[in-house]
């Protein structure tokens, strides 16, 4: 981004034609377009937020797009991850995204990092880029991206979504706050459901990811007022966009006191206190138990809307959201197996039951999703 005019790459005739609507913009022009071509932007995640980012940043002519993702395209991604198509289901997200990017703009160079971003590889990967765009889907990676950006002095274009609401900001710049200034610590595991458990409006990552793409381009061009020191709150339901002021916290361990000099174990940082260890049962073992006619209660702690999609025969719906009041309706003297979509909420339900005095509680490992894989493929996955 600091390249001088003479160091900037030339634009070919084809590129001059392709970017003509940028070139005639007074704040972009040929020099701005060359800056975009010289820029190296790292997308962490090729999912909901990463999709519009990949599409718009490649179309805009960002010269090098790095993408970090280890996942494969799943059919449940397609409702929002618009960089991937139906034919890509089962392919690596990186390959699927790269193919789409090259179709949009063959002048973009895609650097593929088909790996999970970890404390071991983050500095090495991020060091080679000018700007990092955080499109991850979990707190551990968000704190990892933040700390790596602060240590290396790279701006972090942040975006995050849940259900109908999103957040965006430009963090870890020399003058502005970082993610830890915004949220000092992550919530305990399980308190905030993931999009897989809580759902997300498909178009929402489009809104927030496009804002991240806009901020990235503004940073490269050095124009406008980036979202530094401001957090943009997007509410799809009320159609309201508003900003609140965020400040660099002088006591922030990352950008304030700089006590974080190296990357830590982010899974442990986001794991909080060790959860109570609950006994687990596999779907096959549960199927045998049901077939034997064992005397126990199978409690499905998902929401009614999920129950309607699919449920295990013999289960009884007691949503976790109705705990602790609903616990009073259950018989603590009976054996109980709890179950949810993938096993996270039911683990919390089991903890709550044990805390309430239930002695014989078991969690179905992998939830109804693994039940569908291992026992009954007619159960739809969602």
């Amino acid at each position, binding site marked *: 981004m600091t390249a001088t005019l003479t160091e900037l790459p030339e634009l070919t005739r084809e590129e001059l034609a392709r970017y003509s609507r940028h070139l005639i913009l007074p704040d972009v022009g040929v020099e701005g377009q060359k800056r975009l071509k010289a820029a190296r932007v790292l997308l962490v995640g090729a999912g909901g937020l990463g999709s519009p980012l990949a599409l718009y940043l490649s179309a805009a002519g960002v010269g090098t797009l790095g993408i970090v993702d280890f996942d494969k395209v799943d059919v449940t991604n397609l409702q929002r991850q618009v960089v991937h198509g139906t034919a890509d289901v089962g392919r690596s997200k990186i390959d699927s995204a790269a193919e789409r990017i090259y179709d949009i703009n063959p002048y973009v160079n895609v650097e593929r990092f088909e790996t999970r971003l970890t404390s071991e590889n983050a500095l090495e990967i991020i060091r080679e880029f000018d700007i990092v765009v*955080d499109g991850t*889907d979990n707190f551990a990676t968000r704190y990892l991206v933040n700390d790596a950006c602060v240590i290396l002095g790279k701006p972090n274009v942040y975006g*995050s979504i*849940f259900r109908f609401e999103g957040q965006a900001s430009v963090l870890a710049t020399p003058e502005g706050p970082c993610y830890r200034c915004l*949220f000092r610590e*992550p919530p305990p595991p399980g308190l905030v459901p993931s999009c897989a458990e809580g759902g997300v409006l498909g178009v929402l990552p489009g809104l927030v990811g496009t804002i991240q793409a806009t901020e990235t381009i503004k940073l490269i061009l050095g124009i406008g007022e980036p979202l530094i020191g401001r957090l943009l709150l997007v*509410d799809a339901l009320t159609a309201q966009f508003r900003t*609140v002021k*965020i*400040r660099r916290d002088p006591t922030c361990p990352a950008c304030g006191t700089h006590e974080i000099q190296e990357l830590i174990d982010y899974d442990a940082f986001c794991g909080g206190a060790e959860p109570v260890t609950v006994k687990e049962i596999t779907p096959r073992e549960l199927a045998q138990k049901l077939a034997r006619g064992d005397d126990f209660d199978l409690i499905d702690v998902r929401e009614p809307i999920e129950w309607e999609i699919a449920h295990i025969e013999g289960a009884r719906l007691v949503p976790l959201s109705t705990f602790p009041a609903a616990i009073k309706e259950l018989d603590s003297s009976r054996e109980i197996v709890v179950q949810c979509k993938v096993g996270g909420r039911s683990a919390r339900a089991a903890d709550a039951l044990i805390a309430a005095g239930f002695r014989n509680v078991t969690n179905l490992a992998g939830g109804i999703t693994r039940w569908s894989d291992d026992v009954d493929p007619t159960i739809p996955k969602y």
Partner: protein
Amino acid sequence: MPITITLPNVLAKLADGQRTITAYGTTLGGAVADASRRYPALKPRLTDDAGNPYPFVTYYLNDEDIRFSGGFAAAIRDGDEVTIVPAVAGG
């Protein structure tokens, strides 16, 4: 003195479906405690057991982060607006 508290969508169901609620108090902490009394289901999502804000939920008083302006002890005035922003991680 009444102030308005804007809740994230995910918490609205704990306040009878309302995105904006009215609360009374002379300090921000007092108003949050008032809201917690009237919507008991909200209480554990707004503060910890000791009545303090969580490190993963940020309160903005008239768009300013309250941690830099007195926290829950900050004085509030009629018509002040509080926005509650929880950490979310979806992407």
